């Protein structure tokens, strides 16, 4: 049964004077705060913290976590996020004392094993990318985008070129234009054609000698392989620019197509999507980047080097943009990625992608009669279906369907992204789901479409909170407990 008391806001569980731990009396001389800290360094008042016992805290957060849906508890076809099951083996390996208890200030000689692991990971990621140089430092995919764009900027600066623009298609992840802006570029949007590919005419019109980078997600957020990738790469290169691959959808092409072979000069990986890093929680994450050889000297320093005998951190990189993360990035996530890649091997990774694509196409073919897929009958690892038909006929929106799915014990697909498709539902089953799960999910969707519209408008009916007031949350966000 749900413990509604423990689920109250933790401030409401607070009782004056209640403590989680009792500390012994201080054995150092007492000094008043105003004697040791100047006024400007002191807060006006004590922070407003809840006063609760340890048991209250544990019960509160455990009960909240039980309201959650996760890959360990539910099918989670959240398109664009690749919510596949992450083998527990990789968690166990990353938690071995030899991994976990290392300190970044240890001497290189005393952690050769870890350096070897990271060096080999650099090589594996370079091989999968078809690009020569890798930095493991960035702490997230978007951080990888930023680091790569900074690397590109350093490259152009070194060549005496001043390029101000970064282009991305309108179906791109919002992080692409955001990274461009943070890196000091002007973000320019390139249109997509109605069937979801980059509009070559529009790209041509917007490419010029000010264009530094064209950022493309391939396979795209619509779950399609960009059929014009070769002409696009040629156009970008002819304009003197670089092609960046947003590697969000690498799960669809591992061991099948290498970004470097289809013209990309730079890319990032999302290990949490592709290589069993943990999802969500705000980190720590990793977003390794791979670049073509000519860009290698500008990558963040240090990188792991090997002279045939010893592994070492190479700081002697005069053209490097410098550090983008303390120490060596989030090594725990990188260890998981290493274990994942080593477990599957080259052939196995290819099978991962084949099964991801197969599962998505299976689900597409089951659902397209009720939820048309504007971009066609075939997809890569995910597809974007539309609920606009059922919206027009019965007033049931993609949001209603998504919310109702929670009652059926399925996490919802991504809805209303990409915005180029109306009433979109972006579905990514991933390779780790069985045919039985996919059938059950399709069955739930069919049943939902036959339910009364009023029931769906009010869904979900089985969750602790039904529909939050999203407008109010966006307009008047309350991010701290009002005293």
């Amino acid at each position, binding site marked *: 049964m749900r413990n509604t008391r423990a689920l109250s806001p933790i401030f409401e569980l607070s009782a004056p004077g209640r403590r989680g731990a009792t500390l012994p009396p201080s054995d150092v001389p007492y000094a008043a705060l105003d004697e040791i800290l100047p006024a400007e360094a002191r807060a006006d008042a004590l922070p407003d913290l809840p006063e609760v016992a340890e048991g209250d805290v544990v019960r509160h957060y455990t009960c909240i976590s039980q309201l959650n849906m996760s890959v360990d508890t539910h099918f989670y076809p959240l398109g664009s996020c690749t919510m596949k099951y992450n083998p527990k083996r990789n968690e166990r390996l990353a938690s071995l004392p030899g991994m976990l208890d290392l300190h970044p200030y240890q001497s290189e000689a005393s952690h050769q094993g870890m350096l070897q692991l990271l060096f080999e990971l650099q090589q594996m990621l370079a091989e999968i990318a078809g690009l020569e140089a890798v930095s493991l430092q960035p702490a997230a995919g978007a951080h990888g985008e930023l680091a790569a764009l900074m690397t590109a900027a350093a490259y152009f600066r070194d060549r005496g070129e001043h390029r101000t623009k970064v282009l991305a298609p309108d179906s791109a992840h919002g992080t692409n234009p955001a990274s461009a802006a943070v890196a000091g570029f002007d973000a320019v*949007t390139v249109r997509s054609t109605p069937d979801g590919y980059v509009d070559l005419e529009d790209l041509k019109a917007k490419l010029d000698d000010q264009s530094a980078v064209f950022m493309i997600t391939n396979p795209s957020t619509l779950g399609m392989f960009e059929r014009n990738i070769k002409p696009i790469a040629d156009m970008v290169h002819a304009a003197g620019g670089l092609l960046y691959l947003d590697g969000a959808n690498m799960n669809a092409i591992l061991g099948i197509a290498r970004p470097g072979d289809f013209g990309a000069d730079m890319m990032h990986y999302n290990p949490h999507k592709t290589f069993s890093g943990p999802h969500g929680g705000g980190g720590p994450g990793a977003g390794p980047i791979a670049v073509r050889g000519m860009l290698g000297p500008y990558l963040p320093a240090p990188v792991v080097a090997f002279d045939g005998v010893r592994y070492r951190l190479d700081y002697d990189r005069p053209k490097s943009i410098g550090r983008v993360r303390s120490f060596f990035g989030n090594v725990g996530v990188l260890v998981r990625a290493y274990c994942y890649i080593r477990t599957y091997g080259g052939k196995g990774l290819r099978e991962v992608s084949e099964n991801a694509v197969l599962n998505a196409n299976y689900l597409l073919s089951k659902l397209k009669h009720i939820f048309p897929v504007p971009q066609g009958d075939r997809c890569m690892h995910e597809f974007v279906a539309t609920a606009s038909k059922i919206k*027009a006929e019965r007033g049931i929106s993609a949001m209603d369907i998504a919310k109702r799915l929670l009652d059926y014990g399925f996490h919802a697909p991504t809805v209303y992204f990409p915005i180029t498709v*109306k009433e979109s539902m972006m579905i990514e089953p991933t390779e780790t789901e069985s045919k039985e799960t996919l059938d059950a999910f399709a069955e739930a969707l069919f049943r939902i479409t036959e339910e009364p519209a009023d029931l769906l408008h009010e869904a979900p009916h089985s969750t602790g909170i039904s529909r939050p007031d999203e407008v109010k949350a*966006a307009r008047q966000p309350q991010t701290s407990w009002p005293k």
Partner: protein
Amino acid sequence: MTPDQLKFSKTHEWTHFDPATKTATVGLSAFALEALTDLVYVELPNVGRKVSVGESFGEIESVKAVSDIYSPVAGEIVETYPVPNDPKDPKAAEKRMAQIKNDPYGEGWLVKIKVADEGALGSLLSYADYQKQCAEEQH
């Protein structure tokens, strides 16, 4: 104003041009506002800003997405009808957003632009053609 008196952009802005003052009034179509669902905020440019055809001069935020608002004409922004942004009075923003949603072709107007080049007006769509485009987008 009724929509058949207006011209439309493919990107869902409507335009009403007054030849006497050479001023275009611009807003967002009912179709676009409907597709955006619940609106949160609209950000508009400062008066005096010069805009070109197709240039993004503002943003509309809904619970679904933040979308650019593109200028249908080239010229100078001479007047705007912004959304009040006073944290102490959230009702004022709510009222203005409701106005934009419920009366898109009247009080829902967003900016007035002193048109520099009337040529671009010719390439805007009639209401009938715009509706045809929207019908195609639905599928």
